[in-house]
């Protein structure tokens, strides 16, 4: 069993040993075991140990988008760059990955205003389970995975004004640093 495990140890506990199911419950024999389902999906190193967006994009799973036929399925393509003045790498929020799973109304307007720049995002609030932390840290990848959101390198070259500009690196340095 160990020999066929991936490089990292995925540790899905059997239901009767997970500490929350009652081992005496008749459900233990009837319910699907997490390891049976999750071990077949694109592996990850945190959360459910599954790359859920990859699983969707690669067709490993095809979860239903709606129950009612009249429900409008809304998917938005477009990234938002955030935290443009902080010290961490810039946050790239991908609308597409989120709207594949969620509807616009799950976040807008009660959690986040649609207007760019109108939201005061706080890492402390997120760590307390607010804003992004409503899902990240509970069901979607956990807050230990900093670089998945803080994913865009900050341009260290500051213009004369002193403001940081989230522009892509200028061509000559990028070409010089490109892998051979």
């Amino acid at each position: 069993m160990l020999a066929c495990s991936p490089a990292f140890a995925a540790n899905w506990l059997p239901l009767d040993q997970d500490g929350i199911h009652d081992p005496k419950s008749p459900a233990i024999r009837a319910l699907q075991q997490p390891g049976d389902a999750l071990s077949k999906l694109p592996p990850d190193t945190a959360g459910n140990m599954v790359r859920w967006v990859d699983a969707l994009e690669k067709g490993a799973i095809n979860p239903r988008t709606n129950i009612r036929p009249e429900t409008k399925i809304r998917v938005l393509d477009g990234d938002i760059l955030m935290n443009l003045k902080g010290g961490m790498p810039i946050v790239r929020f991908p609308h597409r990955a989120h709207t594949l799973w969620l509807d616009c109304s799950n976040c807008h307007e009660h959690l986040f205003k649609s207007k760019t720049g109108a939201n005061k995002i706080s890492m402390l609030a997120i760590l307390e389970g607010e804003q992004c932390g409503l899902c990240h840290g509970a069901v979607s990848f956990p807050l230990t995975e900093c670089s998945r959101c803080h994913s865009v390198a900050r341009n260290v070259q500051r213009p004369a004004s002193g403001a940081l500009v989230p522009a892509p690196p200028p061509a000559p340095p990028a070409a010089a640093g490109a892998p051979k």
Partner: protein
Amino acid sequence: MRMWTSILAGCCVAMLILAGSAQGEYGDVVINKRSDQEGMRPVIFPHWFHRIRFRCKVCHHELGFKMRAGANDVLMTDIIDGKFCGMCHNNDVAWGPDRCDLCHSGKPGLPSGIYGGHSTTGPGRW
């Protein structure tokens, strides 16, 4: 003095074991608003199982489940009437509300909340 130190150390170890034992899978929700007092096991809702089959938007948009864990007040009568879980748990899409034990499968006395390893605090407010 030494006895008290031993007792204290023992309590710490016991707390660590207890804290570590109620783990569940990442995103498991224990719902025990009324189960214990009604003499039923608490409900365990596994996000992992459902998201393989349904996108978040089905339950959190169409069915009206609020995003914050603990913010949803779901009664068995609602489910039997086809609302919330009852939209699918109707013996058509999934097992019906007569299969009590399949959802009410948690350890008695387990507090409501989001469970699961590899997690940070998550939605902390109930």
